[in-house]
């Protein structure tokens, strides 16, 4: 357990933990390959129950242990399919562990799918009652809370309409409202905050904060790392059914993020490699390359998509490198990065321009320049050469960007033009919007009280 847990004032941290999973393994059985003529074969073997034995398994969680003290807000993060939801379902008691034990103290309310038990044909009012009873309330308890539930869901006018007439947002709001008004000691939340509009999301967050204040235990499964950092006392990171890290949310999130980046890096490197192989397979001029006609635009028409030009000068390698000179596909906003082009001139040329362009995912040119624009005079190029453009601070907002790199004649006729072949991703902890992040700071004067968040 992390130190942060002990430093925080949990209501009954000394007592039994609110949620305890001990060496839990969950193996899902796949019954998939038995889809045809199943009953027949079962009957022929005269053993219906034996036929129900799984023939293929999938381990969703292996030897997973977790202790969540009462009053703790705990975040569970991880990629899709890492076992987060399985863990939540185990805590909720919806599925049973294959091995290990699960113990939960107190009434649970699980927000796994909002409004899961709603019947479309009957009114919101009746659904509130039935949903409430399903979640463990008595009729009287629901009557007492009914107005509050409806008010929270902002559905007062529609509560007597059948649920099938609700919009999906209304449906979810009602589901959320019922589930949180059950007044559970343990609240399980599976990625359901994306309900309804901005205003309602805020209300939901307030509700969680309220839970926290009252010393309830919350287990949150989410992809919103921001939420984990803001709300959770502790966090754990699940990867392929195993716990990779646990403890302080900031640390866990940071570890997770850097792992995701490594993974993305590998992925981008692979797709880059693929792009390179594909263009290499494109019809290359025979060696030695034929002399380029004065008017080479005709070559543009034969060019393969993504790469064209006479290849008198060829771009043999494109590398994006971080400040340490390491090749990178993921950079952080504001980092110093370099773009290095390796070129090979099949015959000496004196008429050449190197150019780069950065495009965002929507295809908008974020920035473009070349050696002529930046006032260089081309003199001669022969054999191999390396050209590096360094951006001291790449102040782009988070997103995926693509690169154009080219070497062409002064009149624009290309030797080798790589169009959007190279991809890199900019990561940022700030969620600002747009394309470019001008360096900026805020100052305030007069009757305003505003302070940076701690």
């Amino acid at each position, binding site marked *: 357990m992390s130190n942060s847990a002990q430093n925080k004032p949990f209501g009954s941290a000394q007592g039994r933990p609110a949620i305890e999973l001990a060496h839990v393994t969950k193996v899902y059985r796949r*019954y998939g390959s038995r889809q045809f003529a199943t*009953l027949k074969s*079962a009957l022929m073997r005269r053993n219906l129950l034996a036929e129900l034995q799984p023939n293929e398994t999938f381990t969703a969680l292996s030897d997973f242990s977790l202790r969540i003290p009462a009053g703790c807000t705990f975040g569970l993060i991880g990629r899709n399919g890492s076992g987060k939801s399985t863990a939540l379902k185990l805590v909720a008691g*919806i*599925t049973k562990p294959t091995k290990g034990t699960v113990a939960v103290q107190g009434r649970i309310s699980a927000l796994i*799918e909002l409004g899961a038990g709603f019947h479309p*044909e009957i009114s919101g009012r009746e659904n509130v009652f039935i949903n409430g*009873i399903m*979640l463990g309330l008595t009729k009287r308890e629901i009557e007492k809370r009914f107005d509050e539930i409806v008010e929270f869901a902002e559905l007062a006018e529609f509560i007597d309409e*059948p649920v099938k007439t609700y919009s999906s947002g209304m449906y979810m709001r009602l589901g959320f409202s019922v589930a949180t008004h059950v007044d559970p000691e343990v609240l399980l939340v599976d990625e359901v905050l994306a309900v309804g509009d901005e205003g309602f999301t805020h209300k939901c967050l307030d509700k969680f904060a309220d839970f926290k204040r009252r010393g309830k235990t919350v287990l949150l499964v989410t992809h919103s790392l921001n939420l984990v950092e803001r709300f959770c006392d502790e966090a754990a990171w699940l990867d392929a059914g195993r716990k990779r890290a646990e403890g302080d949310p900031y640390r866990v999130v940071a570890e997770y993020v850097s792992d995701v980046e490594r993974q993305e890096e590998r992925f981008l490197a692979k797709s880059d490699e693929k792009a390179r192989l594909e263009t290499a397979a494109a019809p290359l001029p025979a060696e030695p390359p034929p002399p380029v006609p004065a008017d080479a635009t005709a070559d543009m028409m034969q060019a393969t998509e993504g790469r064209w030009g006479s290849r008198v000068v060829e771009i043999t390698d494109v590398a994006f490198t971080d400040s340490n000179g390491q090749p990178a596909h993921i950079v952080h906003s504001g980092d110093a990065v370099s773009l290095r082009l390796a070129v090979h001139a099949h015959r000496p040329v004196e008429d050449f321009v190197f150019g780069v362009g950065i495009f965002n995912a929507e295809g908008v040119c974020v920035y473009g320049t070349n050696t002529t624009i930046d006032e260089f005079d081309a003199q001669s190029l022969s054999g191999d050469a390396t050209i590096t453009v360094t951006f001291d601070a790449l102040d782009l907002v988070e997103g995926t960007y693509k690169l154009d790199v080219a070497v062409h004649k002064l009149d624009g006729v290309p030797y080798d033009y790589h169009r959007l072949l190279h991809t890199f991703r900019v990561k940022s902890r700030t969620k600002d919007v747009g394309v470019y992040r001008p360096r900026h700071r805020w100052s305030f004067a007069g009757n305003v009280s505003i302070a940076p968040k701690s």
Partner: protein
Amino acid sequence: MWHNLAQLARYRGLIQSLVARELKARYRGSVLGLFWSFGNPLLLLLIYSAVFNYFITARADVQPYALFLCCGLLPWTWFASSLNESTNSLIAGGNLIKKVLFPAEILPIVSVLANMVQFLLALPILAGFLIYYANVGIAGPDGVMGPPRVALHAAELVWLPLVVFVQLVLTTGLALLLSALTVHFRDIKDILSNLLTFWFFATPIIYPWFSMERLKFWLDLNPVTHLVVSYQEILFHPENAFGHRAWLLALAVASIGVFFAGYWVFDRLRDSFAEVV
């Protein structure tokens, strides 16, 4: 298994609301609403009465034939609809099983109970017809009015709750068994609907039990025979003492066995539902 059964008692409130919801949802949007629970059997009886009075000469040994038919048909409808609906109930309620902590057996049980309520609501209609015909008597094949018949008999009617209870236990047991197996073997749904068609004719509903001397042995093997014959003896033949009670008591014991067997299978497969549904 015993623990889970005991747990079930805690969910009475939920079962109640779900049955109410099922019935409400069934007629939601219709102008007459719950009236249809009475209206359907009423119209059924009127139509059969008209058909067998004016169009088709019914068998003379059970008169009025439309009433005889309904005494067997109404419980059969309860039985058959319950099985049909509960078979599909776990798959239809998959969302609940996967996303909400929920004792799955509630779903087939609710199907059986909702159909039972429909059946119970139809009983007063049936009773009304029985009393009416008893008072006016019936025209024989020659058009001569027969003597008035004995109407419902209190000494016989005390058996009725037991018959209903035995049917409830038997149907629930089968519903649990079938619903659990259908999750894994979806073919059961189609097999069942065909089987029920055969089963209907293999039960003395459209013909009286006593008229089938040759096949009596086979008919007796069918548990629903004894339920239907019990209803017929109590409701339609109140003039004779309820002679089928021995069969009924035997069936009661067997039904409890079926119930526990069904529940046992259901309980064994319970953990797989959330994963397979």
